[in-house]
């Protein structure tokens, strides 16, 4: 069972498709919500905060969106992977499917959502007259590293969540704190210089920071990228090791 890559790829495709169709099955606008959601929050935040920080930030809507999209992917991707094992316990108890496939599919599904919402970012860039720099291509690097981070973290959380069901609530609080610590809607300059150091240790902020540099036409800082890369791969390795140890015992805990 599941010996070839092709079989796994097909399963992955089916699982992502299943997530996509089930999410919007009862809403009449369907997949359009993937566009509206970031767009509407952007408008709200722009109206509220551009008065406060507008002078310090060049093109506030783009600044906010470029951070928000990455943060959304991080938060929903890791949460999706966290719940993936429990949500599919009915299947896992009855048929043999490699369990990590559910975690991967949850992250991939959120990544697809993330890519769809890029249309909004580009749309807002066109509307606000922001120039398209060639460095935009480089944004693939922080995006890819963030994907690895999310997947690794998702594996760890998925294990914890099957053993302790309240990890989910704790993690919600954690992501909320992380949101405020990622400079989504305010400029980094308002943070005192000493505390800025701590902020740069936050890998999600590092990803957002590098991504913004690409969007604004600046070459991303290699040290930030390196830090993010090392962090992401460390988390991934820990995740894989942890998952490998506990995967066997998992079907008894479900």
């Amino acid at each position, binding site marked *: 069972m599941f010996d070839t890559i*092709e079989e796994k790829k097909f*399963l992955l495709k089916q699982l992502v498709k299943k997530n996509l169709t089930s999410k919007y099955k009862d809403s009449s606008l369907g997949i359009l919500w993937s566009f509206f959601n970031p767009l509407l929050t952007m408008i709200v935040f722009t109206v509220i905060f551009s008065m406060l920080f507008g002078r310090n930030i060049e093109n506030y809507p783009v600044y906010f969106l470029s951070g928000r999209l990455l943060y959304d992917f991080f938060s929903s991707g890791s949460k999706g992977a966290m719940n993936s094992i429990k949500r599919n316990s009915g299947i896992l108890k*009855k048929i043999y499917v490699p369990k990590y496939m559910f975690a991967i599919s949850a992250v991939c599904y959120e990544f697809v959502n993330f890519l769809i919402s890029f249309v909004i970012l580009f749309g807002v860039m066109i509307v606000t007259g922001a120039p398209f720099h060639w460095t935009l291509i480089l944004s693939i690097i922080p995006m890819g590293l963030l994907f690895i981070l999310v997947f690794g973290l998702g594996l760890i959380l998925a294990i914890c969540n099957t053993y302790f069901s309240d990890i989910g609530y704790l993690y919600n609080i954690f992501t909320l704190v992380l949101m405020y610590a990622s400079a989504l809607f305010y400029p980094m300059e308002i943070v005192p210089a000493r505390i800025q150091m701590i902020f740069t240790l936050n890998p999600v902020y590092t990803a957002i920071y590098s991504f913004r540099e690409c969007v604004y036409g600046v070459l991303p800082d290699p040290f930030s990228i390196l830090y993010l890369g090392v962090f992401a791969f460390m988390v991934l390795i820990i995740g894989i090791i942890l998952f490998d140890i506990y995967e066997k015992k998992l079907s008894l805990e479900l």
Partner: protein
Amino acid sequence: MSLLKQKDESLIKNNKMIDENGREIAISVENLVMEFKVSKDRIDTLKEYVIRTIKRNKTASKTVRILDDLTFKVYKGERVGVLGFNGAGKSTLLKIISGIYEPTDGDVKINGKIAPLLALSAGFDKNYTGRNNIYLNGAFLSMTEDYINEHFDEIVEFSELGEFINYPVKNYSSGMNSKLGFSIATLIKPDILIIDEILSVGDIKFRKKSSEKIQSMMQEGVTVLLVSHSIAQIRKICDRCIWIENGKLVMEGPTEEVCDAYVENAESGKKKKKGKKK
């Protein structure tokens, strides 16, 4: 089965397993032990875990041994029946062989492609149409897209669903559900077939068809591991039997012998109980 051990497993599959006498082994179970933890109040929140660790009143969870040092082999092309009363550990055994559970101790080796006909409609998405569910379930059974495309009409025809294939599965009757499940699951050309009492699916017509399908699969030389409470069925199909009780191997041998002993034991057990009542 796990992320890191993928390579080892494929190695086993390439080297065919052959025993001392030169017969090829399909399933090899060695010293299999399976234990389940049962505790009256399971700790499943972090809060409780922390509080109880501090208070030091974590109840030691009891372990129940479902399978106890089970060893047997199934040779290629053999049809083996598994006998045992309720709770003997038969279904757990099949689940371990299918890879759903990881054994507490011991070794299970599988040689060849395995098709577990255990829970036929477990992977269905209720909101999906029958058509989409064929693809989804095919993926769960590790088929490729091309393979399903190729055999799609065959599945629809066999399932007798006709027009209903385009309706969501939530509107299906339970008979239709299992018919579709059976049609998908039997599409794989397996080397080993694991069956847990599913030879009776759907109405009389479909029952006949499904048992014919399984018969034809068997004639192609598929190895079969069958759990059934119908002794007649086991006598008809299997050439060897394994009888387990309380997770231990009681008897192993030719079907007739084991079946006779099993039936005798069941009847004498009844008599004993009656005797006690008197």
